[in-house]
């Protein structure tokens, strides 16, 4: 669905700016009428998408992350885009790296971020093209709730 209105942030791809994305998300999602729990879920998912750009997209020279909030009456779409080195998200996703069926000594650290995005959003799409960076599109549908923030 096409967004009626968009809000765009351009941020340095460093860990220090990811909380700025969360603050903006909170403002936009609460204005739209999302529940506290949905907003908390989206905060985690969006931060994980930004973390991926911060950690993997650029080398020492750094770069930018663009975050676009697409707002309409029924859903919020958040696009997180970088122009760095694309990485094999799809493979990570298919591994479904949760810890549920593992013993502690078998557990490997990492890979939980993408799983959380999928678990917490209604829809997650990843477009990654060699040399053109990575784009993650996260969608949450607005369900009417009594517990507004």
């Amino acid at each position, binding site marked *: 669905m096409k967004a009626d209105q968009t809000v765009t942030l351009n941020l340095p791809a460093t860990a*220090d700016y*990811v909380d700025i994305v*969360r603050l903006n998300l909170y403002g936009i999602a609460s204005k739209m009428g999302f529940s506290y*729990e949905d907003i908390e879920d989206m905060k985690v998912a969006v931060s994980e998408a930004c973390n991926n750009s911060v950690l993997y997209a650029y080398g020492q020279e750094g770069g930018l992350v663009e975050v676009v909030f697409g707002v309409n009456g029924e859903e919020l779409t958040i696009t997180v885009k970088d122009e760095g080195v694309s990485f094999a998200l799809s493979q990570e996703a298919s591994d479904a790296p949760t810890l*549920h069926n593992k013993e*502690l000594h078998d557990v490997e650290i990492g890979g939980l971020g993408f799983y959380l995005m999928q678990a917490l959003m209604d829809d997650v799409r990843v477009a990654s093209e060699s040399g053109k960076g990575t784009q993650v599109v996260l969608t949450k549908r607005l369900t009417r709730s009594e517990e507004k923030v």
Partner: protein
Amino acid sequence: MTTNKNDKFNARTVSEEGRSIVYLSGELDLSVAPDFRLVMEPLVGDSDVDLAINLKELKYIDSTGIGILLSILKARHSMNASFSVEEVPTQIQKLFDMTGIAKFFEPQENSQ
């Protein structure tokens, strides 16, 4: 950008009678992960004390933070030493359950 990290995230250690509790507050994310590791490192290596973290005032955790907790669990497990979480807020417990890390923590009373 210079961020005052103490405003954003804080870890305070209270040690007494063979037990160390680290009280976390604020947001534990990628930007403060190195600070958290630094606080925990000397505590994790001491197998003589029971180690716990109290999450009552923690507002947010991401997969980086969960990953650090997991590495502490692994290290403590290999030393046959304890590591537990106390007063886990509902939203954070949800992430612990979702990722599956919850089952590795010894049962504790949860807040809320």
